[in-house]
């Protein structure tokens, strides 16, 4: 079954970092890129960035440049999103999606609270 499986929900503190994983199942990660999108409570979708599954090249939204790092591990078929210097504004559901948005992960809720 072709799917993207994301890591469990996270509760973390302001100023900390969080790492979310997105494991591809049923296909080889290197054949497609992965996009990361987030959605605040009762908010719309926000594009964060993209990573090539083949080369690891990245493209970040200006809003997140310098604070977000995308990476991937071909050996485990997994892509990663790391967000540093978290604030309460980063509380959201984070999604990974395959190129073309034809396949989505189930979402990972990240809550930033003191």
């Amino acid at each position, binding site marked *: 079954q072709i799917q993207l499986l994301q890591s469990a929900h996270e509760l973390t503190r302001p100023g900390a970092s969080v790492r979310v994983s997105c494991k591809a199942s049923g296909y080889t990660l290197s054949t497609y890129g992965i*996009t990361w*999108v987030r959605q605040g409570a009762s908010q*719309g*979708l*926000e*594009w964060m960035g*993209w990573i090539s599954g083949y080369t690891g090249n990245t*493209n970040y*939204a200006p809003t997140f440049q310098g604070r977000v790092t995308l990476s991937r591990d071909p050996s485990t078929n997994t892509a990663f999103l790391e967000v540093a210097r978290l604030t309460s504004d980063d509380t959201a559901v984070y*999604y990974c*999606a395959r190129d*073309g*948005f*034809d396949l*989505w*992960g*189930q*979402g990972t809720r990240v809550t930033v609270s003191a």
Partner: protein
Amino acid sequence: FTLTQPHSVSEFPGGTVTISCARSSGSIGTDYVQWLQQRPGSAPSTVIYNDDSRPSGVPGRFSGSVDSSSNSASLTISELHSDDEADYYCLSYDDNNRAVFGGGTQVTVL
């Protein structure tokens, strides 16, 4: 550029709704427009890609179009069903290959 959608639309079962997605600058034809459906509590899924193509499994009641004269794209849902009730987002890409999302439209089936 930004993509502007109406906040909400509503219609009775069996009716037709059309959701617009207006591009603020640059031509709507510069890059393809895609439409996503997001039901409450679920991840989004694609209902239209490449302006007017439907993925397999999406009913023919969903159609997409682009109008250069109004510089906008539209999603039309006909024969409205109760399970069409969801948020719908348009998206396209800027010159740096970064996705731009519309603000989303809530579709209510009365």
